[in-house]
């Protein structure tokens, strides 16, 4: 195993307010995350050797956002933009981490950003719907993004004798923690009843099963372990990342109750981190709950429970803060918001805060093992990135 000095650690985090942010441009929003990340790390722009920007784009006007953001923020080192759909943030993290592990950088920034409200809702629905397989699914059949996850929800509910009310439990949990997170888009509780009353978007998924349209940015400053030690008393190490790609075409998936790419990514992450799976090794989980069903599948794909048992985990409140597997104590994509390219970095920021013990009142997990797990899916299982973090103690 690597020593902490040879690893890469997060030494600074920054997170914008998530929501409908028509008060700021994409560059100003980016700065809202980069500035606190630099300050938290105690470094300046000159110290940064590379920065990567996770961004999907299309709905915002700047077509080369990595550079306009970098210009605003005073960054002139090498950079690039990356897209892995809703896992763009994790891809951005991978690039920045590898940039250090490769010896090419000592300090790097991984950020993610999305400015979705710069387009009207109709355009956004259309754009996300195209993020499956355009030619074979969108062109003739008008698939939408909720539509894809609804295909999974239908199958899952049927296969494991679950009800829409069970899925709503994930929304209730998300909103509970969102209400405690000052950066969240929605800061109010909800109930199963309220969720059940919300309109269908794509049956059986309702509006309250769905993450919202969100503007937001998040950034982490990463440093090589030996440098990190000098910059931070509480470095959070990126122990390992696992990744896999699924098919684009839904017909080429062989199962509609879980995401095969997530399972492969998780296995790779555990193997690289030298861990025997997820069940006994983590204090805090961030899972990709773009829809309620996605959270349930994540529990199973990560191996917290067996196939079909994810729904019971929810029913039993075992993924609340005081349960066996505290998950998405920041409100998750569902309540915190889901600015596509920023989500993966927002998850990294959250795990860092949790492992540092800096989460807001009522949503700080009990940290005993010193490890957190991040699960970030792109598209409808097109991409999966699973990342293991630790305090290194």
């Amino acid at each position: 195993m690597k020593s902490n000095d040879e690893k890469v650690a997060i030494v600074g985090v920054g997170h914008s307010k998530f929501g409908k942010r028509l008060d700021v441009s994409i560059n100003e929003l980016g700065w809202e995350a980069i500035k606190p990340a630099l300050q938290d790390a105690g470094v300046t722009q000159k110290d940064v050797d590379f920065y990567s920007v996770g961004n999907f784009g299309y709905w915002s006007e700047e077509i080369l956002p990595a550079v306009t953001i970098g210009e605003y923020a005073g960054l002139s080192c090498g950079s690039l933009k990356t897209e892995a759909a809703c896992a763009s943030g994790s891809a951005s993290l991978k690039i920045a981490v590898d940039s250090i592990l490769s010896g090419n950088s000592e300090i790097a920034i991984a950020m993610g950003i999305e400015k979705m409200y710069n387009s009207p809702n109709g355009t956004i629905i259309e754009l996300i719907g195209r993020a499956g397989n355009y030619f074979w699914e969108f062109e003739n059949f008008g698939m939408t993004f909720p539509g894809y996850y609804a295909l999974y929800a239908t199958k899952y509910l049927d296969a494991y004798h679950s009800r829409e009310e069970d899925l709503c439990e994930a929304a209730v949990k998300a909103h509970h923690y969102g209400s405690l997170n000052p950066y969240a888009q929605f800061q109010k509780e909800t109930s199963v009843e309220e969720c059940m009353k919300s309109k269908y978007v794509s049956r059986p998924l309702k509006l309250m099963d769905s993450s919202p349209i969100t503007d937001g940015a998040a950034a982490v400053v990463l440093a090589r372990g030996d440098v990190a030690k000098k910059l931070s008393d509480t470095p959070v190490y990126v122990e390992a990342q696992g990744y896999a790609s699924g098919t684009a075409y839904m017909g080429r998936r062989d199962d509609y109750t879980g995401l095969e790419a997530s399972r492969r990514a998780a296995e790779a992450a555990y193997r690289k981190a030298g861990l025997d799976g997820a069940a006994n090794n983590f204090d805090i989980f961030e899972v990709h709950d773009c829809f309620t069903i996605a959270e349930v599948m994540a529990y199973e794909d990560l191996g917290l429970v067996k196939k079909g048992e994810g729904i019971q985990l929810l029913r039993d409140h075992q993924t609340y803060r005081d349960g066996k597997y505290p998950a998405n104590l920041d409100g998750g994509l569902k309540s915190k918001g889901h600015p596509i390219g920023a989500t993966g970095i927002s998850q990294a920021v959250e795990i860092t805060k949790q492992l540092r013990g800096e989460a807001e009142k009522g949503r700080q997990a009990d940290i005993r093992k010193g490890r957190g797990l991040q699960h970030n899916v792109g598209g409808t299982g097109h991409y999966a990135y699973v990342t293991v973090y630790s305090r290194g103690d």
Partner: protein
Amino acid sequence: MPIDTVLEDRRVLDLRYRMPISQIIKFFEGLEEGKVRGTRCKECGRKYFPPQTECSTCMTKNTEWFDFEGDASLETFTTVEVVPTSFVNEGSYVVAVGLLKEGVRILSWLNTEDRSSIKIGMKMKLKAVKRKEGYYSYEFFSI
């Protein structure tokens, strides 16, 4: 007069694609003949849908077209209620994934008289269709 805090773009970009189908023209010819087709690798036997004329496993173009008989069972489905702007004329629609008896899965619309009767595992028929707009497509039908 106070200025709006959002500048409405005075430039508009229309994205409308032209998508090459030379390699799979037989698929579209098939639709006009009432047939839905996939490809099969003559070397390893792998069946492809979406059709591809080159097998990525064998790395050869030694593939052939074959017609689906259309017998399928329903794997999963959804009714899309909030539809993209370019589909607003369709109302809501049912999208299904069906497993063809040839062992290939296809996503398409499911036509049925009674949406409440749709059940996972039910039998369906895949057919080529001519849409009212004049183009050819393929859809599942409940039986």
